């Protein structure tokens, strides 16, 4: 990779102008930070893949997946959380576009909205597990350790929730740096890779844990 100063050029015709890394023969204008984030995300995808495969094996091997007394999962409520995560991926990518175009105020507001959406998702997950305005799954009889279904549910959704919590902290850290002028559109793009990965993984969690008959 060349060590020249990053230039200000068109990333692609369909994307806004952005300060890009010098072109490399194999990896184009992807910066080392971006490549590092991609490698981390691929390894992280394996951990989710392992958990979902484990759930599939336990489910396929059990005569009764839903033990007597266990509640059904709130599919409609979780579909609402899914829409919320999709919206935060949208606001995140718009924040990157705004930062690339030099609209710093819009980028800051959109990043703050993304973080707020992440916090709302966590609040929704807390409601689903423990209950805030209605009884949670724990009170309804889905208790960690009592069945394979309960254990895989809490481990998988908890691991994803941990990723959301880390993502919110990451967004707030980048937002603080952006407001101070020390973060650029490139930092927001790398952050966006992580945040959209949280949405990417949730697509499979929602399908395999909540929807699969």
């Amino acid at each position, binding site marked *: 990779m060349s060590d020249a100063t990053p230039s200000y050029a068109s990333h692609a015709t369909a994307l806004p102008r952005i300060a890009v890394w010098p072109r490399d023969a*194999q*990896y184009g204008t992807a910066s080392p930070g971006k490549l590092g984030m991609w490698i981390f995300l691929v390894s992280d*995808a394996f951990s989710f893949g392992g958990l979902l495969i484990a759930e599939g*094996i336990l489910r396929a091997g059990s005569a009764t997946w839903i033990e007597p007394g266990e509640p059904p999962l709130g*599919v409609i409520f979780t579909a609402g959380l899914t829409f919320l995560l*999709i919206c935060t991926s949208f606001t995140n*990518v718009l924040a990157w*576009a705004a930062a690339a175009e030099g609209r710093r105020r819009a980028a800051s507001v959109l990043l703050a909205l993304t973080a707020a959406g992440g916090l709302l998702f966590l609040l929704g997950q807390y409601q689903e597990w423990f209950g805030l305005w209605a009884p949670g799954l724990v009170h309804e009889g889905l208790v960690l350790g009592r069945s394979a279904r309960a254990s895989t549910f809490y481990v998988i959704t908890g691991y994803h929730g941990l990723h959301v919590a880390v993502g919110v902290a990451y967004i707030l850290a980048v937002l603080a740096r952006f407001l101070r002028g020390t973060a650029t559109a490139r930092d927001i793009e790398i952050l966006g890779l992580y945040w959209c990965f949280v949405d*990417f993984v949730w*697509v499979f969690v929602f399908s395999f844990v909540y929807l699969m008959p």
Partner: protein
Amino acid sequence: MADAARASEGVTAERHAEAYARRQYVAVVATLVILTLVELGVARSAGIAGPAARSALVLLAIAKAALIALFFMHLRFETRILKVTVLAPLLAPAVYGLVLMADAFWRHLR
């Protein structure tokens, strides 16, 4: 004069590209919402047999994940080698999952 016109054309083209990118993002969000509604319909429909529903849900999830990776994570605009670097390793858990499904199906037949 000609330089000013070219510069103006450049700015206009750039704004078109930006507007195009935004329209693309809106279209992706709308498609994701529609696919999620289809997933809900498939999961809650009593008329679809278990294996067909499971296959449809897996395909819908892959379609949604592909949209997120290609457009929101900008994988579509990366080089072929970066795409392969990211996507090829993901085939491993997919193949492993298929092998396990085939194994479960085989046990069920016996």
